């Protein structure tokens, strides 16, 4: 009896604590709780043959740090006169000339962190020594967050490489849950009417390559957690069915499709061991789970409504979001076994395309709330509090948002410039960048590689 009572108190406390955490304002989450670090990034100099490469290096380093969305970048016009280049340049007090950390922390610079270092040409290679110091620390030794040596080729490519690597280390140091570097975006491109193929490109839109060659309508890709496979829906064999392509060599992998007029919206589970999809095998399109080869499938839910787009929570495999009726399409949740069905969106407008943030606490999704049917915008919701923020504002249709591995960037498709194209933006809706121009481009998903 007493034990039960104590358990009740305990669970109440846990629920309360969880509630407090969940009640954090979603805007604060998006902008970074407690404000973003203010980063002062000095212009690095190089010795000898390294110096001509410094313009490329400095530009890349600044751009990577800024586009991470993690930092406020301090304007260079507010910097003190001198920049340290090595930690031994630092001294306790420099009378605001730049060699003391306090010179950077105080007005007008107001930096919380200082990024500095230098490069040199050594044995025909480019060597970078990069440092990050917390400007608010009295003790110089304790102030060092990062001190690292990087080596690249002595050319523009090498300068870009070491800048990316240094930026990546800084981002990880500040809790960025992963860099965009090396990540790939998979999407659907059409250059001929009714021919849609799966394509891949780098996170910044570079290196665009065609993955499938099915001469059919192949759409709605889902990427595996390790980035090695993309499952998609294709009409290559008549009725819409699921196929899987290896992202490294473009080869098709076997997938057993149920005997059905419709097998679609395949998505990998976060552990990479299963695929959830929608199938009309039982008449009405409903959610099924299956092994990666499509075998051992079983029906998850038994509801009297169309169900598509199953998405398993990255932190809790027993939470499954999907899109369904009855009535106008909304986002719903249920357990992996189809129990405890609840509507997540509030019933306004039509909702679709739920995409989990890697933190398992937030989704990006498309919603027509506040607009006419078909006027889709990208929203982000804290699924604990159901608070939401609208990121696009009816500049064309904005659909299929998907999170970058860093959990701070979103890729989406928009018709704002006419035909649908792929864009990225930060989770607060800023820094919108177009990645595609050729043909019509839809259905982007972001893979770790």
């Amino acid at each position, binding site marked *: 009896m007493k034990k039960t009572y104590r358990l009740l108190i305990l669970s109440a406390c846990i629920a309360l604590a969880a509630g407090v955490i969940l009640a954090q304002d979603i805007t604060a989450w998006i902008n970074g709780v407690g404000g973003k670090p203010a980063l002062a990034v000095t212009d690095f100099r190089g010795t000898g043959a390294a110096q001509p490469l410094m313009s490329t290096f400095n530009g890349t380093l600044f751009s990577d740090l800024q586009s991470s969305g993690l930092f406020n970048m301090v304007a260079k016009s507010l910097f003190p006169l001198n920049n340290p280049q090595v930690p031994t340049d630092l001294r306790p007090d420099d009378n605001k000339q730049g060699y003391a950390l306090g010179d950077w922390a105080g007005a007008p610079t107001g930096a919380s962190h200082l990024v500095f270092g230098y490069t040199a040409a050594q044995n025909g290679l480019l060597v970078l020594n990069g440092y990050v110091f917390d400007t608010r620390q009295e003790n110089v030794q304790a102030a060092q967050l990062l001190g690292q040596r990087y080596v690249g080729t002595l050319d523009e490519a090498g300068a870009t490489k070491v800048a990316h690597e240094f930026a990546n280390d800084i981002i990880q140091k500040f809790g960025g849950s992963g860099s965009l570097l090396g990540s790939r975006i998979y999407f659907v491109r059409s250059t001929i009417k009714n021919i849609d193929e799966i394509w891949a490109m780098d996170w910044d839109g570079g290196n665009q390559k065609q993955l499938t*060659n099915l001469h059919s309508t192949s759409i709605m890709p889902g990427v595996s957690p390790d980035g090695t496979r993309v499952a998609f829906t294709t009409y290559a064999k008549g*009725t819409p069915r699921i196929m899987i392509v290896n992202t490294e060599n473009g080869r098709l992998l076997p997938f057993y499709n149920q005997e059905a007029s419709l097998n679609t919206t395949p998505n990998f589970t976060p552990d990479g061991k299963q695929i959830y999809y929608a199938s009309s095998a039982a008449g009405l*399109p409903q959610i099924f789970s299956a092994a990666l080869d499509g075998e051992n499938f079983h029906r998850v839910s038994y509801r009297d409504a169309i169900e598509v*787009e199953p998405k398993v929570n990255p932190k809790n495999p027993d939470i499954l979001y999907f899109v369904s009726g009855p009535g106008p399409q909304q986002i719903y949740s249920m357990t992996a076994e189809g129990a405890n069905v609840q509507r997540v969106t509030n019933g306004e407008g*039509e909702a679709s395309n739920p995409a989990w943030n890697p933190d398992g606490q937030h989704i990006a999704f498309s919603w027509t709330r506040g607009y006419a049917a078909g006027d889709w915008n990208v929203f982000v919701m804290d699924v604990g509090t159901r608070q939401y923020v609208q990121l696009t504002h009816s500049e064309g249709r904005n659909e299929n948002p998907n999170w970058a591995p860093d959990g701070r960037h979103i890729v989406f498709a928009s018709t704002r410039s006419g035909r649908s194209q792929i864009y990225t933006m930060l989770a607060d809706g800023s820094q919108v960048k177009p990645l595609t121009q050729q043909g019509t481009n839809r259905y982007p998903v972001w893979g770790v590689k």
Partner: protein
Amino acid sequence: MKTYAPFRSSPLRASLSFMLLSAVFIAGCGKKAPIPPPPPPPSGGGTTAAPAGPGTPTVASFTVEPASIERGQSAVVRWSVTNATSVSIDHGIGTVEATGSSRVVPTDTTTYTLTASGTSGNVTRTATVTVTAPAPPPAPVSNNAGSARGTLDSRVQSDLQDALFDYDSNNIRDDARRALTDDAEALKRIFADFPGSTINVEGHCDERGSAEYNLGLGDRRASAARDFLVQLGVPADRLKTISYGKERPACTESNEACWQKNRRAHFSSGQ
């Protein structure tokens, strides 16, 4: 850096199929009719070379009616002869009574010759029937006559109408009920004409719902239309449902008139 197998740049496989336009030359009218012989002199007229006498037959009349027929039709040969000991007509009619008629079905323009024999001489007369080629049969409905597949396509296109739906609905409306009732009869005729054929029932949606949800909705529309047709006796195993969601709009404008055209069950030929 990722390594990729060398992908073929997707070749434009717009295979140009050349359609042979077989111009049908309708062979005009068969042979030209020979100029008919001059009309027989009036009986007992004075220009007859052989004087009419007690031994000379007289051909009162010898005709073919109608004078012109289409191949396959019949004509009637009539004659009336007096004062003859025997009368015969060529082209298989043979020896006949002095007065009579015979139905003939000549395949080509034919000139019949009647020979009347008397005790003191013979008299001959001719009569001609012109035979023309029949009018060509009506052209088939298809432009692709000769290809059964093409004909099935065109029958599906011309004989079957779309069933339209309300937004986010797969209910068969009254107008869709009427359309599908007509379609059921047309489908039965098409299946009778094309044994072994199947026909796709496609489900389509307008552009407003999400593409993913619309694949599901299109599937529901296609099966609702299929089920209705099966109730009316269309064989289920010859109908195949396929959802295109909003991937194949019939109309691309953003207004209700266009959206309504896209919210449809549509037919296309299968295998």
